[in-house]
């Protein structure tokens, strides 16, 4: 997971202009899978976000995979980044990974933090699901 984080960090560092970073995230948002309507249900919805975001978890062998979708393309891009970081790992690996390590990406500043921090909600959801699947 740490490697993926560092890869994103390198990607982000290429951008002189903040707007280019957003272009990149929007791009990721568009490229990422779109869930079918049935999966966009209350169970998969992340609570505490301003717009709607869904995380679907698949388990293949021992490993978890996250498919994400969202109403807004920027949040969707952000969700995609998280999915990339955390997918293809066992629940235990996920739980062992210190979320503080994400700080270097400053992802929480992408979607402006309002009262309920959408970014934290997504992260919480990932760790919660990993725990369930232990």
């Amino acid at each position, binding site marked *: 997971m740490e490697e993926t984080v560092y890869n994103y960090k390198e990607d982000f560092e290429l951008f002189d202009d*903040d*707007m280019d970073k957003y272009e990149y995230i929007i791009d990721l948002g568009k490229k990422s899978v779109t869930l079918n309507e049935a999966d966009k249900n209350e169970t998969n919805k992340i609570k505490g976000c301003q717009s709607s975001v869904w995380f679907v978890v698949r388990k293949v062998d021992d490993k978890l995979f996250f498919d994400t979708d969202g109403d807004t393309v920027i949040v969707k891009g952000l969700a995609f980044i998280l999915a990339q970081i955390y997918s293809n790992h066992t629940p235990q690996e996920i739980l062992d990974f210190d979320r503080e390590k994400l700080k270097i990406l400053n992802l929480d500043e*992408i979607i402006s933090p309002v009262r309920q921090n959408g970014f934290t909600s997504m992260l919480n959801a990932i760790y919660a699901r990993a725990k369930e699947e232990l």
Partner: protein
Amino acid sequence: MSINEIRDDFPFFKDNKLIYLDSGATAQKPQVVLDVMHDYYTKYCANIHRAAHGLGNHATKEYEDARQKVADFLNAKKKDEIVFTSGATSSINLVAYGFVKDNFEHVIISGLEHHSNIIPWQITEKALHVIDSKEDLSVDLEHFKSLLKKYPKSFVTLTQTSNAFGITLPIKEMTELAHQYGCKVLVDAAQSAVHTKVDVQDLDADFLVISAHKLYGPTGIGALYIKKDLHELCKAFQGGGGAIKEVTYKNTLFMPIPYMYEAGTQHIAGAIGFAKALEYIDTIGFDFIQKHEKELIDYAYENLLHVKDVITYGDTLNATGNISFNIQGIHHQDLGILLDKQKVQVRVGHHCVQPTMQSLGVEGTVRISFGVYNTVKDVAVFFAALKRSIEMIKA
């Protein structure tokens, strides 16, 4: 007077390079407002009404002069028709608890009300009746009449200008109609009073609420106008120091309105700043304000027409103070984030009118709202940033 001169009155615009198009949420404050509050805090800071010392009398005098200023601004007949509150929301809640709760069963509202003019009626368990809006979001006066017929002697409470769509209701006409059916009328002028002259006598409002922070004044203070004839029917709401004639453990004798409703230490600095903000508006004058803001709306409207896939709501060309829109296929939150990154501050979301959004079948909109300090250039920068945002998302 030029807009540049006006902008110079606002320290906010000296310190940063942001385009501020969110005055509908809260307006920036001119230096004179900050100065009078500073004077209170540094020169004659004291509690009011209760003191027998010179400082306290000075503060009391300024506070009561502020009340007079609010009365004059709204053209109230008497200064004791003005109660200071902590804002429009608390003014409406005061009316809900102090007047409507025990006197009415039915409350009639428009389809454009702010949450602050919906939830207090739910909390006090009134039957809520919503006037239909027409296609262009204007009120359906025929439906209003039918509600009045069905529920005469009810409480009617209406926003003068919609904070989400800039639509202005024909308040004077509606008040007259409501009175014909024995209703009492509250006017929510939180959004309108900064854009148009509000005259409680002309509107014949029974209650009217405003917030200082939307009128170039400080936070934490607002006012409630209560027509003198109704004072007798108003009951105590919050109890505390300063509001009483005599207290025993058995019973309390209250002062008359407004004091009955000003329990506890008041926001003295806020009242003084509030009055100064209203004076500031007076020196500019509504003629100037309306002419200038109309120019901004016209310019925005014209530009908006040329934005591809734009969706507007209601009669945008005649909007007061704010314009709301969406872009087909783009989430308003995405636009909000990208505009922010380009240093343009607008508001996106439901603007505290969720029921109206529900009836339009949307979750929210992008809203730009104006203060007298905004320039045509602000609007131009906004549209350039909007264009770039749309391109980024649609690319």
